[in-house]
């Protein structure tokens, strides 16, 4: 069973790569634009920390960890989550979602792995660079335990991000047109670029509990800096499991409501 899904995943990834490469010139400009965006996205960091050595309790080196995790998650969001979800929303609207349901494998798995944008992998490399630069600034390297904890928390972040997106997509079964959500969520997600202590009051509560942006980037960054506890990692894992469970439950509920576009 597991092996079948693994080979299916591999197949889906290969199809995405082939799709992305069918227009060579476009593929290359894509890569160039991606790198360009990554570089310009770092400019505000330099300006902010050029003005102050310390912002909301974070030094430049420490804040770079948050930027690193943001870059990683943005890569995952825009490279693996967004494209698949946009596709399924379109399928629901057009009625071609029927073809997905006809396939003998789990529909949620199929739609979640349907499309990957290979160039977003640039984000992973950039994030690596940002981490390295940050630790050079801090003048030390992370301990193995910190890296493991940060890795686990990153995994939890991806799970939460994916679950939130899954919930948004299931909305499409009721309201059909949700493609704008991608833009909206992308705009809100951009706030995760900065340590969550930057935000105060209502916004802080919003970004912690409603859209847990702070949890997604600031918490793993703290872990990498050795400022986390076992309880926090456990809590994040539990939260991620709950999020995944809820999104699965809502998805199956929504599926039973799906009536196809033609009927």
């Amino acid at each position, binding site marked *: 069973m597991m092996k079948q899904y693994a080979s299916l995943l591999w197949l889906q990834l290969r199809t995405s790569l082939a799709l992305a490469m069918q227009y060579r010139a476009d593929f290359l400009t894509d890569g160039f634009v991606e790198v360009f965006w990554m570089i310009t996205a770092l400019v505000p960091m330099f300006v902010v920390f050029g003005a*102050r050595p310390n912002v909301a309790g974070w030094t430049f080196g420490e804040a770079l960890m948050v930027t690193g995790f943001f870059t990683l998650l943005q890569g995952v969001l825009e490279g693996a989550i967004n494209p698949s979800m946009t596709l399924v929303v379109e399928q629901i609207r057009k009625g071609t979602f029927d073809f997905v349901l006809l396939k003998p494998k789990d529909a949620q798995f199929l739609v979640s792995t349907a499309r990957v944008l290979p160039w977003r992998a640039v984000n992973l490399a950039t994030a690596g660079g940002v981490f390295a630069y940050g630790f050079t600034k801090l003048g030390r390297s992370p301990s193995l335990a910190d890296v493991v904890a940060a890795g686990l928390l990153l995994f939890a972040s991806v799970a939460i991000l994916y679950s939130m997106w899954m919930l948004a997509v299931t909305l499409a079964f009721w309201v059909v047109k949700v493609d704008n959500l991608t833009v909206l969520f992308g*705009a809100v997600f*951009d*706030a995760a670029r900065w340590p969550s202590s930057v935000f105060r009051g209502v916004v802080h509560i919003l970004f912690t509990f409603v859209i847990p942006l702070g949890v997604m980037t600031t918490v793993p960054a703290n872990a990498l800096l050795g400022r986390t506890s076992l309880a926090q990692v456990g809590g994040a894992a539990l939260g991620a499991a709950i999020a995944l469970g809820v999104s699965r439950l809502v998805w199956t509920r929504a599926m039973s409501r799906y009536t196809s576009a033609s009927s």
Partner: protein
Amino acid sequence: MSLRSTVRALPTMIRVGFSEAVAYRAETIVWIAATTMPLVMLALWHAVARDAPVGRYGAPQVTAYFLAMFVVRQLTGSWAVWLMNMEIRDGTLAQRMLRPVHPLIAYAISALAELPVRGLLAVPVASIALVAFAGDQLARDPALWAIWIASLLGGWLITLLANLAIGCLALFIESSTKVMDVWLALYFVFSGYLFPVDLFPPALRHATEWLPFRYQLGLPVEIMTDVYDAPAALAMLGRQWAMVAVMLGVVALVWRAGVKRFAAYGG
């Protein structure tokens, strides 16, 4: 394609464009809500300026700057490049060229007609917030507000002309939205959208005076928040409109060269 017939068609075209914008008002609200960047930046720069001002920017100046930025961004937006890319690829441009109004003017008008809807939805709230939280930071001189209106128009024109110029590039290459992405990345950094351009190191700050981006957003915001006295504002306005003239020339050139290549496929 006389000027007179174009002028006669204008009111109707604006009405059509406006109705289109109203028809998709829910979508417009989402687009407005997606303009969260100035508010995130507001929170960030507040954290930066919490203890002591950065350059000229203390907490009240930061509030005024980014709320003004939100307003200006809503009023100077243009998205013509995506429409043009679509219409050039599917051949709809051919139909537009048959009409007695120049296609570029038609794009400009439909872009213009979107603004009142956005303005009506977003600007009142933001303006009230601006006056309530940072009223004392705003310009007092009526002359400055007159210059501000001219600068807003200039900023919108530069945004529109950039959209049209890059849109025309789609006549040469399959899709020019990637070029727009590059433009947008530069625009975010150099326009003052993420931080006031004053905070750049001197060399880069000087560069912003020769690039179009600052005149799109930064200048109207700076005039609003009382950075310049009237003569200085007027001088900057002159530069802005010189930039408008340059962009107009670029659009004319690219269009003329490009339209010869247009094969009207599918039309």
